[in-house]
């Protein structure tokens, strides 16, 4: 009976041939997405550089996209982005790494089972909520210590961004540290090391690639973070190095300009793409670096 049925199932063999191709087509959507991003950004960026010379854009310290004498220097945005990222990493790296060490080296199973999900919750909170928190809580709080702080400034969103990134650094570093074989720890403990010494001199050096990769991913995340800065750091486009002041990041600029809905075809509209392109390249490099680091050193032990 099955014998007979078998030969009549031509349909299956067609499905069998079509399915891999169909699924490949679906899988290429992700590549198309990347291509879409690159092409979109690139086309309009090229248009932008027809209006504004490449060098003027990347060396210009004046960003004044709207006035009659519009000027497009991206340096104010770059400083804003770099500042917020550096501040964020000053928070996220030490706290994240210490939390990772605690969870991986010191915490008992039970404690870890309680604390890790809390960190995960922190990672799942939408950034808009962090933005609200930065603007309505952290800034006023900081201003009670630092009266010179502007109501919108780069410091507060930087710190909150750091808090947002802590779980990411902590969880990726913890993964890297947990995958260091126990025999390594035992070897060090048997030589009379304290836990701190084991962690610092054996576990972290052994896990260093994963740990650094977590930092780099954190940086990438900070560079691309949008809503926190859009809400809490204002839109000041001055080229300044003062962290008590409002500074605009690349992401916040994009939100401002699209929020103001720049019309297609204007230089300011193209500037949106040039900034986005810069942002995209920055984060892409960071992601590739992170992948390279973790791949290169993965097979260490």
């Amino acid at each position: 009976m099955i014998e007979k049925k078998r030969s009549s199932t031509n349909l299956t063999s067609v499905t069998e041939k079509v399915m891999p191709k169909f699924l490949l087509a679906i899988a290429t959507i992700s590549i198309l997405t990347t291509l879409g991003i690159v092409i979109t950004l690139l086309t309009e960026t090229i248009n932008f550089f027809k209006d504004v010379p490449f060098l003027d854009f990347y060396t210009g310290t004046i960003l004044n996209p709207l006035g009659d004498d519009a000027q497009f220097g991206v340096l104010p945005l770059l400083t804003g982005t770099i500042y917020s990222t550096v501040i964020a990493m000053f928070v996220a790296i030490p706290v994240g790494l210490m939390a990772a060490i605690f969870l991986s080296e010191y915490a008992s199973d039970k404690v870890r089972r309680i604390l890790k999900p809390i960190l995960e919750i922190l990672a799942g909170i939408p950034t808009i909520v962090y933005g609200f928190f930065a603007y309505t809580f952290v800034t006023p709080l900081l201003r009670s210590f630092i009266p010179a702080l502007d109501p919108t400034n780069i410091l507060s969103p930087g710190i909150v961004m750091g808090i947002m990134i802590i779980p990411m650094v902590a969880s990726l570093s913890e993964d890297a540290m947990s995958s260091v074989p126990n025999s390594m720890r035992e070897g060090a403990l048997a030589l009379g090391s304290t836990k701190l010494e084991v962690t610092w001199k054996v576990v972290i050096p052994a896990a260093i690639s994963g740990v650094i990769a977590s930092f780099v991913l954190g940086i990438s995340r900070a560079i691309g973070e949008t809503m926190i800065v859009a809400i809490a750091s204002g839109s000041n486009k001055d080229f300044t190095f003062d962290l008590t002041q409002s500074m605009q990041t690349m992401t916040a600029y994009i939100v401002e300009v699209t929020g103001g809905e720049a019309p297609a075809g204007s230089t300011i509209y193209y500037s949106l793409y040039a900034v986005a392109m810069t942002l995209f390249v920055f984060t892409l490099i960071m992601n590739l670096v992170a992948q390279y680091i973790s791949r290169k050193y993965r097979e260490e032990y």
Partner: protein
Amino acid sequence: MAVLSDRENKKVTNIDRDGNQVDNKKIVYDTKDLNLWYGGDQALKNINLSIYENEVTAIIGPSGCGKSTFIKTLNRMVELIPVVRISGDIRYREKSILDKSYTVEDLRTKVGMVFQKPNPFPKSIYDNITYGPRIHGIKNKAILDEIVERSLRGAAIWDEVKDRLKENAYGLSGGQQQRLCIARCLAIEPDVILMDEPTSALDPISTLKVEELIHDLKKDYSIIIVTHNMQQAARISDKTAFFLNGEVVEFDVTDKIFSNPKDNRTEDYITGRFG
């Protein structure tokens, strides 16, 4: 059964002590009614053993009998397992090491350990050896260099690695790695060295080298070695303890154990009838 072996343990220990007072050697380790549980499972039962200076003491027994557990109790490494509970007493150089007041780091500085699987740090050979001295505060480069050479010579591996001290220890063969681990242990100038099947992951030639090394080390250190390999125990140890189901069935001079065991379970094991 428990009563029986208990009695036997005592006897063994007495004989052993008597036998050794003649040698005039000092006792390094002395365990008294040592019991250990993993959660509800008892892994060590009333262990009473005395281990003497500058001897090689072998621990033999079938898989799961508690050999590793016992040896890891001697430097309190078992404490890393959260479910472990211990009763009884262990005296090292006459001080009770199970005491809260005894710092484990201190104990482990005096009692080195070599593991079944070579576990060098993923660092250079040089850094592997100097790890211990450094954490104990030695920073002087000249002294460290001296320690490295002496330890590597002590572990009979100096000639093989002296030209590649800066290379990663993972580039060494398994046998070399194990000797490196022994050298790393020597670098902190321990009093006792614990070894848990140090050759079981090695090829015969490397095994031979490590065995020779152990023989040499005996002059300066007291060594306690766990082994699956009866021939090895016979070749290198002065005393042998036979463990079974967490108990010490017999503990005596190695020659006696192998030629003329008192307990017929020992005999069965040695002649390969089980295990």
